[in-house]
Each structure stands twice: as structure tokens, then as C-alpha cells.
């Protein structure tokens, strides 16, 4: 059975570095290289940046050798769901979807209820990479 780490944090951006540290520590436990770790940290950072600064967010990380699957939510469906689908033409031009496509191996909406969603991110590393 894969190891699981769960975390709940305020969406307030001041906790961003704390979340980064924890994600870094988790990535280290499954032997991610610096770049893969940085990619996962960036994915979560950008996702939370889109989620606003009010309320709290839960994160669970399922760990296996060379693989981390994160579930992050609940997040407001409005805005986030669109940003996840929109790979072209969102206001930023460099959309959340484009960023995630680059830095994680797969992502999507894990579940949706009452205007809130949980987002799934998966990051893999090849052996020795």
C-alpha cells in the first residue's frame, strides 16, 4: 500500500513557502530529482494561486517509488475548472492548463460537488532521472 501524507492549510499565500517545504520533503522521500520536485512544487503553487486567498485547502499525497499523486481541494469550481480545461486563450495566455501540462504527467478534476472541486495532479519520474 502506498504511503499517504495529508495536509490542511489556509489558502492565504503566506503559507505558500510552508506548503513548498512539505512538498519538497515528500518528493525527497520518493527520490525525485531537484527538477521533478521543483515541477511539482510549481504545479501546486500555481493551482493554489488560482484558488484565491480565502478559506482552507486540503492536500493529500499518495506516494509510491518514483510517483506522487496529489489531490487538492476543495477549490472553487468557478474559474479553476475552466482554467484547467483551457489550454489556449485564457486571460493569461500562459494558462494554468499549459503550465500543468508541462510540469506534471497528468492532471484533472478528481471530483466535483456543490460548486467545489478536487484537483488531481500526478508526477512521475523515470528511474535514475
Amino acid at each position: 500500500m502506498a504511503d499517504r501524507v495529508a495536509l490542511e492549510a489556509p489558502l492565504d499565500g503566506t503559507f505558500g513557502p510552508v506548503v513548498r517545504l512539505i512538498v519538497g520533503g515528500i518528493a525527497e522521500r520518493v527520490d525525485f530529482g531537484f527538477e521533478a520536485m521543483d515541477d511539482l512544487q510549481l504545479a501546486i503553487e500555481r493551482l493554489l494561486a488560482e484558488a484565491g486567498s480565502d478559506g482552507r485547502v486540503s492536500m493529500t499525497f499518495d506516494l509510491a517509488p518514483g510517483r506522487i499523486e496529489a489531490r487538492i481541494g476543495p477549490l472553487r469550481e468557478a474559474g479553476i475548472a475552466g482554467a484547467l480545461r483551457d489550454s489556449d486563450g485564457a486571460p493569461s495566455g500562459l494558462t494554468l492548463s499549459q503550465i500543468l501540462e508541462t510540469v506534471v504527467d497528468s492532471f484533472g478534476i478528481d471530483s466535483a460537488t456543490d460548486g467545489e472541486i478536487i484537483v488531481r495532479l500526478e508526477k512521475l519520474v523515470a528511474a535514475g532521472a
Partner: protein
Amino acid sequence: MRDAKHEAKARTRAEERELLRLYHEEGDTSAREQLVQRHLPLVRSLARRYAGRGEPLEDIEQVGAIGLLKAIDRFELERDVSLGTYATPNVVGEIKRHFRDKGWAIRVPRALQELNARMSITIDRLTSKLGHSPSVGEIAVALGTTSEEVLEALEVGSAYTTLSLSASPAGEEGESDPLDAIGEEDLGFERSEDRVSLAPALGTLAPREREILRMRFEEGLPQTQIAERVGLSQMHVSRLIRKSLTVMRDELQ
């Protein structure tokens, strides 16, 4: 022997004057670039004086290079002084201002600052040696410390109020950013997409940072390759990507 040395110095000075003339009177930007290349050793030498204060040497060198560019741009041909002499206070002033204005935003233990400063070169060295991006554990072994300290030291980079050396489209006093003139101009995002609403956000980034984002998210290049292309460390590229995305996001809000 002394005459030969004197002659070489005079010849170098004459070449420098000609390059300054070409740049200031004829707008020859390649002359400016040559002046920059000739004086980078001076910048490096001055930057080294400020090493060990918690910032990577390469960051300090780049700040110093901004001072050099400003000195080249402000140099008046009537001045009877070498560019090196004229540039030195500009370079030092730029570095001091950087430390004063853009230094550590929060108090970071000196040991972590120093670890952070050593991290960049260690990551690049290990990437080259191991043939893959080193894990935190591998970095820790190389630095003789623990994984937790490595993670904390990596996070120390976030303690800067501003990491970008050229994040603003305009420098102080409304001057154009000297770094805009260096490197390849690449407007891939704007060119390839009809993303009009992004213009203000992308416009807040310097060309080099736009290019780094383009390489990462359009070409899909890994940080290591981007670092090689732009001549920065992988850690610096990572920080510029994060910083740029944050700046763009903030701009849109």
C-alpha cells in the same frame, strides 16, 4: 618591456574609445556588446567582494552588469577617463543598491544563506556528474548536510523581496532596462497567439524572462537545457520561472 606594456594599454584604450564612439554616435549595439564583454572581468572582480552575503555570486554579477551597462550608456565621449574607471562606482553602486533594496526580506540565518549560495553550483555540478537532476538527498551528501537543511536553504531563495534582476520593463528614473538590450529578442507568445489580454502581464517581464517562459512552456525544455542556453544556473532558472509566473498573475489581478 615597460614601453610595450604602455603601448598595449594605449592601444586598448584607443579601441575602447572607438567602440564607445561607434555606440554613442552611430548606435552600433555590437560595439556596446563588445564593451560589455571586455569589462565583464571587472564586474566579476567587483562582485566577488560582495560574495558570501547570502546571494549567489552569479546574481551579484548580473546586478553588477546592469551597473556596467548604465555606465556605458551614460559615458560622455568628452571624458578623459577610461570606461573601467568610470564604470567601477556605477557597478559597485548598483550592487550596493541591490543589497539595500532587494536584500533579504526576512531575517534568514546566515548558515542557511550560505548554504543557499553554495546550492546553485552544487546542483549544476551534480547534474553534470550524475547525468540526471540530483535528488535532495544527493545534494545534501555533496554539501555535507541534511535533506531538511537543503530544503530549507532552497526555500531561502523565496526570502528575497525581488529576485528578478530585470523584472520591470523600465529601470530606475524611467530609463529603459539595460538588460532589454542583451540576449535574443523572442516574442513567441505574442507572435503565435492572439492573446491580447496577456500583453500587459507579459509586458511586465524582461525579454530574457519571457524567453525563459517560452522555452519552458512552449518548447517544453527542461530547466537544465534552458540554463545552458541562457547561461544561468538551473536554480536561477527555476526561481525566474516562479517569479515571472507570480508577476504575471499579480498583474492580471
